[in-house]
């Protein structure tokens, strides 16, 4: 992307010194009894944990950006802030456009409702109106390929059918910003290929994609830019190949630093 493009394209996601603090509570007073006990002991048994320690970046329209990093580095926290699930403790977040999340497929599905009923309920939960859902219903049915199962309760679905329906609903809402968290790891090959095609389609149509994955092959394939996060800090932001190889080297380094069991001299 040229500098000229960068100026012209809309900022979809803007993070400015974003801090997300969680209160990690060892013994959270879950019940009143515990709360009273804590009151009398007058001790606080929590400590604050900063999942993000001041992160800034801008993602523009049409970009496909990967976030790479070890487990617990803060990748998913970033996605949840973009999705609006968490409100950051400090810093500024600006999102423009509708966000769609492929974070946990079928999160709002109710097991006792049929596939068709769940399409409506899930669509409403994701912020569509009833009319918009009906307009998309046929496409969702086509993608999910459930056949007669569409009018059975989803608790009778196989996990693959469940996934297909969840994916179909989440992508058919046609968001401006698509968040993907390790999604391609599920489903059979046909499903994976369909997902990949659909994501590719999003990219071609100039939608914004934020992709979190440990599958560096998929990262290279889908994204052109990558952010590397470690310990809640942004370590690198640049073209996907550079950042990913940098990340690979770091991971390698970490493993090499760790002494092998055989290398430890025995007494």
């Amino acid at each position: 992307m040229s500098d000229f493009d960068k100026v012209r394209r809309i900022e979809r996601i803007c993070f400015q010194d974003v801090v997300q603090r969680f209160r990690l509570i060892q013994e959270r007073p879950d019940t009143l009894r515990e709360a009273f006990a804590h009151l009398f002991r007058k001790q606080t048994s929590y400590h604050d944990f900063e999942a993000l320690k001041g992160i800034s970046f801008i993602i523009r329209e049409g970009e496909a950006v990967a976030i790479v990093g070890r487990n617990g580095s803060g990748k998913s926290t970033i996605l949840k802030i973009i999705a609006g699930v968490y409100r950051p403790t400090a810093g500024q977040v600006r999102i423009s456009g509708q966000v769609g999340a492929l974070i946990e497929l079928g999160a709002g599905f109710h097991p006792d409702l049929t596939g068709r009923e769940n399409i409506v309920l899930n669509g409403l939960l994701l912020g569509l109106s009833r009319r918009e859902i009906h307009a998309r219903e046929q496409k969702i049915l086509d993608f999910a390929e459930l056949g007669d199962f569409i009018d059975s309760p989803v608790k009778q679905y196989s996990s693959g059918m469940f996934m297909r329906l969840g994916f179909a609903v989440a992508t058919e809402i046609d968001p401006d910003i698509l968040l993907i968290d390790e999604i391609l790891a599920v489903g059979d090959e046909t499903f994976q290929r369909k997902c990949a095609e659909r994501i590719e389609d999003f990219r071609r149509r100039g939608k914004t994609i934020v992709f979190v994955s440990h599958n560096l092959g998929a990262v290279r394939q889908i994204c052109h830019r990558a952010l590397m996060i470690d310990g809640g800090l942004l370590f690198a932001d640049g073209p996907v190949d550079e950042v990913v190889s940098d990340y690979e080297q770091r991971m390698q380094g970490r493993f090499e630093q760790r002494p092998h069991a055989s290398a430890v001299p025995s007494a």
Partner: protein
Amino acid sequence: MLQLIREIRKNRELIWALALKELHVRYKRSALGFLWALLNPLLMMIILTMVFSTVMRVPVHNYPIFLISTLLPWTFFSQSLAYSVESIVSNGDLLKKVYVAKSVFPIAAVISNLINFLLSMIPLVLLLVVFRFPFHRTWFYLLVPFVSLLLFTLGCGFFFAMVNVFFRDMSHILQIVLQAWFYFSPVIYSLDFVPARYRPLFRLNPLAYPLNGFRLAIYYGQLPTWQSMVMSLACGFGALIIGYKLFQRSQDNLVFYV
């Protein structure tokens, strides 16, 4: 308050769908289905009538009607709270994954019971017909206690839904609170039964006003004093404003505790 109205407008389709889902799931697997919404208050009324009219001989004419005129609104109130208190916690998984206005869950819990409440007016009307009980013109006045009760229930619903996220004991405490509240409220008796010197104490109960309004309009065919009407509405609006404010203040933190 404006904020709440805006939220309801924006999410009205979602709230409606969630409320219907609630009913759907509640009745789906039962043979009688929606008929339970009609049968339940009738059966409850029969039991309470047997105890209080036949066994304890409460000196009230047409006790079943005296009773059901307040039993239905009470049931709406208590059921709504029982559903609201769990509404945020039970949708915790969802709230951790997608952004949804949190207020839709307690509202939907109340709305689903509101539908039940309106359905249960059918057995009430049938009962009046069977007992050849007159339909007083004061039925038109029912709107006031109805609105008061709805607002009061919503306010309490917000409060209990929010508190239960932080203190899971709340759902257990609520059961006891509701039971005490039932006997403390003019449902199986009316305030006239209470010794005069204790009556001021019973007037502290904000539910007493709308419940009394229901009974006066349906059973006695009278209008309450205007003071009572004002109190009734004031309690409703007050509860809603306080309950929603508290809910709103902590709604961003709910997701960390569900």
